[in-house]
């Protein structure tokens, strides 16, 4: 959830940084990726299978887009685990 910053007597909501809550093994060949979303923001869940200098990098591919909706939500995204490794990140706009 968003934190609050008091500026010149006005309470302004500050959007929280997007965060993947956790990833769990699902069935035989899948994983589930859990994350919360805030209202009125679009989220992109992306993955990459490469490491650049020991850090996930290279080309990031969109796996799932959580649409901009007017209420907070929790998403659970299923993905296959047929590759040796896969790293995930979550991006939010605005």
């Amino acid at each position, binding site marked *: 959830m968003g934190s609050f910053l008091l500026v010149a007597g006005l309470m302004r909501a500050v959007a929280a940084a997007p965060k993947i809550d956790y990833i769990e093994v*699902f069935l035989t060949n899948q994983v*589930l990726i859990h994350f919360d979303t805030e209202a009125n923001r679009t989220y992109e869940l992306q993955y990459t299978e490469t490491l650049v200098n020991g850090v996930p990098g290279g080309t990031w591919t969109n796996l799932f887009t959580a*649409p901009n909706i007017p209420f907070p939500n929790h998403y*659970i995204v*299923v993905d296959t685990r047929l590759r040796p490794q896969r790293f995930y990140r979550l991006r939010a706009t605005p």
Partner: protein
Amino acid sequence: MIKINLFTLAWLGVTLNANSCDLCAVYRAEETKTEGGQGLIVSLAEQYIPYRTVQFEGNELQLANPDYVDSSVTHLVVGYDFSRRFGISLNVPFHHLKFRRTDLRYSLGAPAVLTTETGTESGVGDIALIGRMLLFERATTNSRLVANLLAGIKFPTGDTDRLADEVSQAEIYNTFVPPGTPHDPLGHSVTSVHQHSLTRGSGSFDGIFGITVNGRWKRGFLAGQFQYYLRTVGESDFQFGDEWIASGGPGVFLVSNSKMSFSAQANVIYDVMGRDEILGQRSDRTGMKALYLGPLLNLTVGQQFSANVGVDLPLRIENNGFQNVPDYRLQGGLSWRF
């Protein structure tokens, strides 16, 4: 002498679900009731409700490409009064829904996909059989007080494919949720127009109950009614929430003679829809309370024909979650008595 209608009752609209206000069409069909008692009544009635206002927890939202439903339900009512005291009606609704909805579609093996569906849903809905019993009647030269009891059953005759699909999506989502984690059974959905809002049938046998009271004094009258829709478990264990509607208001006969009557009524409607139950769990994204106000006009010609038209304007709609609610509700009907 002023002609008296036994059921100068409100045309009550409906909230966005499979319920098509079965009692409303029956009420209006009774407008042509004669003093004699026995007779066949045929009525054709239409309800048009554009659901283009999007609300979250009672607050209206302005969205760029909102989902919508334009609902048209035409009721064919065939009734027979065995006497002044007892009657029965068969109500056959024909639904025509024009809609657009954008929602996530889940599967077990791949991420959910956001899809936009635009189209129509048309066909017969749930047929209802409703009985009427005169509870009370007292009349003098200038006044009359009448009360009727209505009760019936709604049968699962309408198509329920959309309900089944909604439940199957909920089942897939449930497999993702860790056991014991609290979540809404419609947690998989991000739309303001759910599949259950587009279904023509509930798949359930539902109880329908109503009481109508109509009092007249000279040219003025006061009409009130209470309806209760008792919902049971239907398609794929989906259970619509119970609904009750209280309505009524004062009216006046503007024209009244031996050949015809014309009346106008101010009608207030309070409509409460309970939360739906999916897979044994109540959804906080369903149900609403709504208050409407609107005029209702009624014309009778002789003892064989009546026509009515009315509109309900929402004063306040408190919905749960993210839903489309009525912009207004327009209704009209024609009835013939043989």
